[in-house]
């Protein structure tokens, strides 16, 4: 290989307003394989890049239903099927009493689904990612805002995309080696 493969071009911005304007322009110009890196969640960037979509709620619903079935099933099976025992004359299937543990297992499984699902959808744990090759990227977790157009985008052209990003008021535009 004569030169390292390219992940994309990353532009650095110093203000929240700067990255929002740039994200809107990049999306308008037709780039789709784009990612923004911000030090805190920014609704406006998600709006600009149309990235609001998330599968987390579906996973949580699934986890909650599974937890409900598991909690209820455990109680019904152990109290009615496996070891029916008359305690204080109450029915074997004391469904009203079973509501409380079932609620707790529902919440428990749903919470696991939310956290593990979020991590899995984000591809974590992920020890390596090309953007970490950019030296100034460490400030993405502090006070700088980054916008990366990836080389896989059909519209990506090294020279032209670089000029385009520079025209958006980026403080710096760098190549991201793969």
């Amino acid at each position, binding site marked *: 290989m004569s030169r390292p493969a390219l992940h994309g071009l990353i532009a650095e911005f110093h203000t*929240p307003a700067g990255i929002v304007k740039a994200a809107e322009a990049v999306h308008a110009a037709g780039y789709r394989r784009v990612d923004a890196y911000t030090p805190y969640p920014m609704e406006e960037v998600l709006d600009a890049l149309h990235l609001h979509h998330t599968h987390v709620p579906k996973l949580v619903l699934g986890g909650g239903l599974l937890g409900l079935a598991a909690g209820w099933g455990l109680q019904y099976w152990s109290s009615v099927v496996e070891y029916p025992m008359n305690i204080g004359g109450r029915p074997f299937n004391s469904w009203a009493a079973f509501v409380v*543990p079932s609620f707790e297992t529902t919440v428990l499984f749903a919470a696991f689904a939310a*956290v593990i699902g979020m991590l899995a959808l984000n591809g974590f744990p992920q*020890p390596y990612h090309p953007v970490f090759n950019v030296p100034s990227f460490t400030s993405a977790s*502090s006070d700088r805002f980054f916008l990366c157009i990836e080389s896989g985008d059909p519209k990506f052209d090294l020279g032209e995309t670089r000029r385009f990003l520079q025209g958006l008021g980026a403080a710096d535009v760098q190549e991201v080696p793969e």
Partner: protein
Amino acid sequence: MASSSRAPHPVIGPGHTFATVTDKIASLVLTRKTPLSWFFGFGVAFSLLMMFLATVTYLLAKGVGIWGVNIPVGWGFDIINFVWWIGIGHAGTLISAILLLLRQQWRTSINRFAEAMTLFAVACAGVFPILHMGRPWVGAYWLMPYPNTMGLWPNFRSPLIWDVFAVGTYATVSLLFWFAGLIPDLATLRDRAQHRAVKLVYGMLAMGWRGSARHWANYEMAYLILAALSTPLVVSVHTVVSFDFAVGVVPGWHATIFPPYFVAGAIYAGFAMVLTLAIPLRKVYGLEDFITMRHLENMAKIMLATGLIVAYGYMIEAFMAWYSGNAYERFMISNRATGPLGWSYWALILCNVLVINTLWAKKLRTSVGYLFFVSLVVSVGMWLERFVIIVTSLHRDFLPSSWGMYRGTQFDWSMFVGTIGLFLTLFFIFIRVLPAISIFEMRTLVPGASLEKDKA
């Protein structure tokens, strides 16, 4: 408030930028010299923890006979302390979940260490019922539904087993919530750490977080859902704890007011503990810009509001004893107020009804030293409340021939004080190795962080 001559205190001091917020909070962990008071506090806490471990060792060797519990008072310090600690934990979840859903911005700087406080308080709480079993390694099948060789299963009709599920879920979900909230901050520490080993540890914990917009979309949704799940959960936990009492027939326990009264008491005690921790923390680490008077005053107001609900609970207990016409209920109240343990009831009224009402005065509510004093008084008051509910109800119930007396032994005290050592030790380690204030959420409070808000 609008007519007030001056604006409310800000949630963040003036002049802060993304960089100063990040520097300030991360430096507590990474660069700042650990203050001498940290070593002093940690030393005291760690000594108490050693006392706790010594007591537990002696307890496991000798059995629960070293405690003061006996018939008729079979639930003594261990259950008092369990309820006290679990209640303290509730404020952390209230701040992190309920105030998030209610869009209370001021929660941001206090939620991280309040959540840590929840975890450590629940850990301390869990110690007591487990050790109360006497031989916890044998007792596991009473609590956990697992296929044991005796073929026995827990009795799911009992509030005590509900408690296992509620507290177990609460501890686990609190841990998940706390860890999820830490991930972006762990990435900040990874990026700023100088030492290679430190970088590696924070890097592994951050799991590759890089602040991608795609990740934030999943993250924000997961965080919001966790808050929505924790909100009914936290209400259920202390409700179930109150069922441990209210489902029984003992006069003084058998009351329908218990669930709301316990939940309010839990939040009340929890905010007192948050203040007890926040006031020295902001002083020692110079965090007055982040934990401002606005935070302290708001917490004082919540304490006052929940304290009034608790006082209402005391009133209803007495009223229902009279109104029910039940001789045992009436005796229970008169025994509480005038019996041999009457001092505990009046001390409770002093702490939880009289002192808390001084917070109506803005001057007192905004005095840091006074708030610290009130927060300690409230913690004592809430411990006394559980003492009154548990001990004075049990020691004289129906039959005078089975009445008795109760007092904690030195081992009861050393275990209780020892768990305070456990709690503080964990808290001191926490503020040393993890950011005590959520950095990424503080960035959202910096002026200019949100474009839409500035337009509005």
